[in-house]
């Protein structure tokens, strides 16, 4: 599909044509670092091209180059970028200004930083219009802004026009960004991880808005993401990037049903699934290579299940070649990939005759009853607002089990972690650790017992002191407890799959996945009974996430650990948890065994969450299932059922009476809904 030579003329329906694009950075030693190498692709009218890859694959750089927005120190060293017949790489700044925002526009990941905090929303959109329509009157521009705001589904656009970004929720901000990008009806829209910073129900709303505005203007789109489910649902064609180059290109359905590159196949095999449980995840070994130390031959070969030991793969770098008119792949042995993937699926499947999950015969390690947390917001002297962050949380967690806690941002799941760890004081309720009261402990007794309960945080970059040697990071808890031994540190490093030499280095020398292993080793230093994993795998790339999940499950089996696994990612929670708790505005709205909750969700919110997750292979049917609107203000929650304002099934009763959390004909599976489905 990609001609190897420079094409003489583009087909009329080509919007963007990138040929042999290479981008270098200036290295510290003056040697260039090749960040993007020989990338070629086309984008046609009306289509969505998905570019997937892990961090460092060069996917965002490639598209920033299209806009001429490469940062300082980065430059295009060869290749061409043709947008609607115009060559962009050699264009002067003044000419590029006429293209940017007119023919091509971009949506970045985080709407909080994409919008200027000190400028009014209306002005930020109006600016985009005025720049390319200098003759429009003030009134015309304002009318167009209001039209755009209503187009992206922002209620009260006249009032919203003069508000600042901080007065908008995350989802509403991203709608504003979309309005800004669509202001001049561009031919090409670049969406760089447009929903990664948003909750899953909001992601569904934003993707729907994007599809609607594109349908109206016919803009082509490049969707850059690490989320395979998202591209599978929304992209027509896909390009997979690895270490600065495209390794596979194919139509969406084909790529997922019949992956040809071992990297693509590996990514698919390492994703936990929402609709069924697998025994174990495949994990691609190693990590994405540093572009300064790319392996010889095929850059993927050291991590490749098929080519790892083949001399050809370490000797020659395979070119991206056409294998069918619509597919390209850069692999010497791509014919073997489908068989390998089939094999993996068999290995990971749970055998039909597998014994039922073990009975709940172990003892309760962590018992939480009627836990409450109220924050007083605002000055104490004058009026203060009460925020009910946790309401009546109760659960029993048995030894060796995992409790998954899911919910969107603001639901109270991280507050729960802090209260359990006694980093924040509870306002009511009790917690028993190994049968003994934990919340009444003070001073030395608290310090002793606290060791049984440890935590791993989300961000392995800020949770490790960059100036401490890893050995000291892991030894610190033991030194405090007076149980330090160097062998124990080495042993812990081995448990998490790191060599003993790692102890002598400092955290900046490690990748994200390795750092999270170190954080896990530190949390295990005092032999805790319970680990609280607060979004512990959320910041990691897909292939690394599978490695860490497998490690956590291995450690649990070996050491009999009990996990409280907090995550916004329902697929991961399904994979790792025995029991699940779904939270909404500080309250548990559904809880039960993982299989029960995921296979027969009772609460409409749980169903909306599940429906909103983009699925690999086939568009999910989300009609009527998307939760409407935004999370209500937690300071002023709705009367009755707090979810009723977003619920597709809300009735008058829901506003009057808060439904209790009770089982609906299935003991052990509880839901707080008047109309729960049994």
């Amino acid at each position, binding site marked *: 599909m990609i001609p190897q030579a420079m094409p003489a003329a583009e087909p009329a329906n080509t919007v963007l044509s990138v040929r042999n694009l290479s981008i270098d950075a200036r290295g510290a030693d003056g040697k260039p670092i090749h960040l993007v190498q020989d990338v070629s692709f086309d984008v046609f009218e009306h289509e969505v091209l998905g570019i997937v890859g892990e961090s460092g694959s060069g996917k965002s750089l490639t598209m*920033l180059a299209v*806009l001429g*927005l490469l940062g300082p120190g980065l430059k295009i060293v060869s290749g061409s970028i043709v947008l609607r017949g115009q060559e962009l790489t050699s264009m002067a*700044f003044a000419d590029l*200004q*006429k*293209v*940017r*925002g*007119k023919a091509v*526009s*971009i949506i*970045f*990941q*985080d709407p909080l*930083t*994409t*919008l*200027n*905090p*000190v*400028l009014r929303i209306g002005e930020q959109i109006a*600016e*985009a219009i005025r*720049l*390319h329509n200098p003759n429009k009157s003030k009134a015309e521009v304002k009318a167009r802004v209001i039209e755009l705001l209503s187009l992206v589904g922002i209620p009260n656009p006249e009032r919203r026009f003069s508000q*600042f970004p*901080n*007065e908008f929720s995350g989802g509403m901000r991203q709608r504003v*960004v979309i309005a*800004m990008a669509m*202001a001049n009806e561009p031919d090409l829209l670049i969406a760089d991880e447009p929903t990664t910073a948003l909750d899953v129900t909001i992601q569904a709303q934003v993707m729907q808005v994007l599809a609607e505005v594109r349908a109206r203007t016919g803009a082509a789109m490049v969707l850059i993401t690490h989320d395979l489910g998202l591209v599978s649902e929304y992209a027509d064609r896909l390009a997979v990037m690895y270490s600065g180059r495209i390794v596979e290109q194919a139509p969406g359905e084909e790529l997922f049903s019949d992956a040809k590159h071992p990297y693509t196949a590996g990514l698919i095999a390492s994703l936990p699934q929402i609709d069924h449980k697998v025994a174990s995840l495949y994990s691609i070994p190693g990590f994405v290579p540093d572009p300064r130390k790319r392996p010889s031959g095929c850059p993927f070969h050291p991590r490749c299940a098929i080519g790892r030991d083949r001399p050809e793969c370490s000797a020659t770098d395979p070119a991206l070649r056409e294998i069918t008119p619509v597919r390209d792949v850069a692999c010497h042995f791509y014919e073997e990939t489908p068989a390998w993937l089939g094999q993996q699926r068999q290995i990971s499947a749970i055998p039909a005759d597998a014994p039922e999950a073990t009975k709940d015969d172990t003892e309760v390690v962590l018992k939480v009853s009627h836990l409450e947390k109220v924050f007083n917001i*605002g*000055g104490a*002297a*004058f009026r203060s607002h009460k925020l009910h962050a946790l309401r009546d949380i109760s659960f029993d967690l048995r030894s060796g089990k995992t409790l998954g806690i899911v919910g969107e941002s603001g639901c109270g799941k991280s507050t729960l972690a802090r209260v359990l760890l006694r980093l924040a004081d509870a306002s009511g309720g009790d917690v028993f650790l190994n049968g003994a009261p934990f919340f009444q402990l003070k001073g030395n007794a608290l310090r002793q017992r606290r060791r049984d309960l440890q935590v791993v945080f989300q961000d392995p970059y800020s949770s490790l002191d960059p100036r401490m040697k890893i050995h000291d990071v892991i030894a610190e808890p033991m030194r405090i407890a007076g149980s330090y031994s160097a062998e124990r540190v080495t042993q812990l490093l081995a448990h998490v799959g790191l060599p003993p030499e790692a102890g002598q280095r400092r955290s900046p020398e490690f990748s994200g996945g390795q750092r999270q292993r170190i954080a896990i080793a530190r949390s295990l230093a005092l032999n805790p009974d319970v680990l609280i994993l607060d979004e512990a795998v959320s910041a990691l790339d897909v292939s690394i996430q599978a490695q860490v999940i497998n490690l956590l499950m291995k450690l649990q089996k070996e050491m009999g650990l009990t996990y409280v696994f907090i995550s916004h990612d329902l697929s991961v929670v399904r994979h790792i948890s025995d029991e699940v708790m779904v939270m909404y505005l500080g309250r548990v709205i559904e809880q039960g065994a993982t299989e029960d909750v995921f296979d027969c969700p009772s609460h409409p919110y749980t169903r909306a969450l599940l429906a909103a997750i983009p699925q690999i292979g086939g568009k999910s049917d989300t009609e009527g299932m998307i939760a409407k609107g935004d999370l209500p203000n937690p300071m002023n929650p709705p009367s009755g059922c707090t979810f009723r304002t977003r619920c597709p099934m809300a009735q008058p009763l829901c506003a009057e009476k808060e439904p209790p959390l009770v089982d609906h004909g299935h003991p052990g599976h509880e839901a707080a809904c008047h109309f729960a489905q049994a």
Partner: protein
Amino acid sequence: MAGFIIKRLLQSILTIAGVITAAFFLTRLAGDPAILLLPPEATAADADRLRAALGLDQPLIVQYILFMGKAATGDFGMSLRQAIPAMDLVIERVPATLELALSSFAVGIGLAFVLGILMRMTRHGWVRDVITWIALGRQAIPIFSFGLVLILIFSIQLKWLPSYGRGTFAHLILPALTLGTYELALYLRLFNASLAAEQRNDYVRTAFAKGQGRIQVLLKHMLPNALLPLVTVAGINLGMLLGGTVVTETVFSWPGVGRLIVQSVSQRDFPVIIAGVFLISLVFVVINLIVDILYGFLDPRVRLA
């Protein structure tokens, strides 16, 4: 907003009371003023009589309560040296201090602003380097030596400007330049760092992606955000300028509040010291309040409550 200001005013009263309390006890540690006030041949009985007249014979805590009671009404007592109310002595010096502080502040902030934008806009690396080196070099020279060098060149050699005293605009130039250029390096560095930090934000890339030009992106998008940290530091600094330009005032014999306080310390003229400290703390508190209110206007994310 009104609630915020009332709350802050109450806090401010406590702050000022704390400051003059500390000033009261610290000045008492400095020694006995009676000895200094009396001629060398005075007897111990003379000293006792003077102490009784000044109220210094009472227990310290009684002195403190009496002092605070009067201070609450704005009465800081008479100067021990001159038969003038202490506060009047201080107030007399305020215009001079204000003149020097505001003009050097304007020099520092104004230059930082222009040079900071020039450094962002220029395509020539050497311009950036030269500005950075000049600013750093200026900051490396202490105020008194830089002031003396200026006097040497412009007053003694060229005879263009007066070297001491206050009166005309010409008197103001050298002290304001001495102090203002010292401030410049700090502001410039901060302004440059905050512009550089803003440049990394996605809203800058987004503005370019809309088709906006370099100057507009800098002035319209980055500048209002980059000013926020500058306002905080400039506010604190203005407070310091208004109270403590002692060195500059000394070098140029500038009749300001700072010099008055230093003189009063060496003369153990307690009421004047405390009145001066009171005024300076009042200025600090008011400026900080203004900075916070200004923040509320500059940054819509800040809610004043």
